């Protein structure tokens, strides 16, 4: 997959000549935090079209690989092998009278707890 270089040439007409080269470019290994080395490799497709004396060059990234990444534990290997992540995006909204039984996130101190929705929910249940 990471062959150093493959090349293919096609000749469209006698006047127009197109050469496509696929090349793999390796970045330097870099330290990722303090957990080890990471290296990123790009596969770049370079197309050179020549018409007469006019030459046009386009380069396109067709692949990204990470051949070297930290593998300290089975679990870190598993996490690193996950596919490119995607996320749903929403806008923050406030729900003031939700049908809930417990409240997470903001009752870490006694004062915060007394003031919290969680305490209000428990008080309401005693009625």
């Amino acid at each position, binding site marked *: 997959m990471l062959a150093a270089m493959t090349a293919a040439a096609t000749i469209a007409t006698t006047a127009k000549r197109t050469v496509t080269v696929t090349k793999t470019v390796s970045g330097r290994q870099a330290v*990722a*935090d*303090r*957990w080890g080395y990471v290296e990123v490799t790009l596969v770049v497709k370079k197309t050179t079209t020549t018409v007469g004396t006019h030459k046009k060059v386009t380069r396109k990234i067709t692949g990204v690989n990470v051949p070297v990444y*930290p593998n*300290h*534990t089975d*679990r*870190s290997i*598993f*996490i690193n092998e*996950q596919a490119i*992540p*995607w*996320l*749903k*995006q*929403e*806008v*923050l*909204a*406030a*729900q*003031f009278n*939700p*049908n*809930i*039984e*417990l*409240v*997470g*996130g*903001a*009752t*870490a*101190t*006694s004062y*915060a*707890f007394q*003031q*919290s*929705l*969680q305490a*209000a929910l*428990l008080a309401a*249940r005693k009625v």
Partner: protein
Amino acid sequence: MHRVEHVMGMPIVVEVRDGEVPGAVFDWFRHVDETFSTYRDDSEVSRIRRGELALADASDDVRTVYARCAELCEETSGFFDVDAVGGDPSGYVKGWAVERAAEMLPGESAINAGGDIRTKGTWRVGVQHPFERQAVAKVVEATDLAVATSGAYERGEHVLDPHSGSAPTGILSVTVTGPDLGTADAYATAAFAMGGHRAGNWTARLPGYEAMTILADGRVLLTPGFPQAPPEPPAA
């Protein structure tokens, strides 16, 4: 019934849908506090931190907790790092202790320990809105699930990025759900410490765990499997 006690430095709510809350649950939390509290000079953790007790000579529970903390440090690329806070494992101990306590509870039950929750059976859990004290930002349908939240609004800005030593920016809270509360809590803390530009994408790679990240600009990022409660039918 439910019971609330202030133990381990926070209010702990224990609820049992049909039945009594066993007293042994709070005895367990008090035992955990005696063993792990950094505010007690005679706790095992305090003795370890002062260098008076070798980890190898500590109790099974203490060794188990430190071993899992070391794994979590690796899983989070050092963003959950007990060593960065002087060997204080409190960030994991709470969730670990709640998991053990949940095993003692009968039937459908739940524990809310300072805003971090473990359910048995299905419970509707609101996630606190970061600005509106009497509102929630999201309702989670939590079935046999841990729900842990780390945010700047809880205890002041107490989570720091261990790599830079400064408070994370661009982020208001991270809520992580999954099978184990100690792990969910560590992941939430780590993701929050990463700051707004990294947290969301990092949480999307956690096998078995889902997350909701609330950014400072008001965007909410959810992993595909985040267990949002279905919308309620409109009131009659």
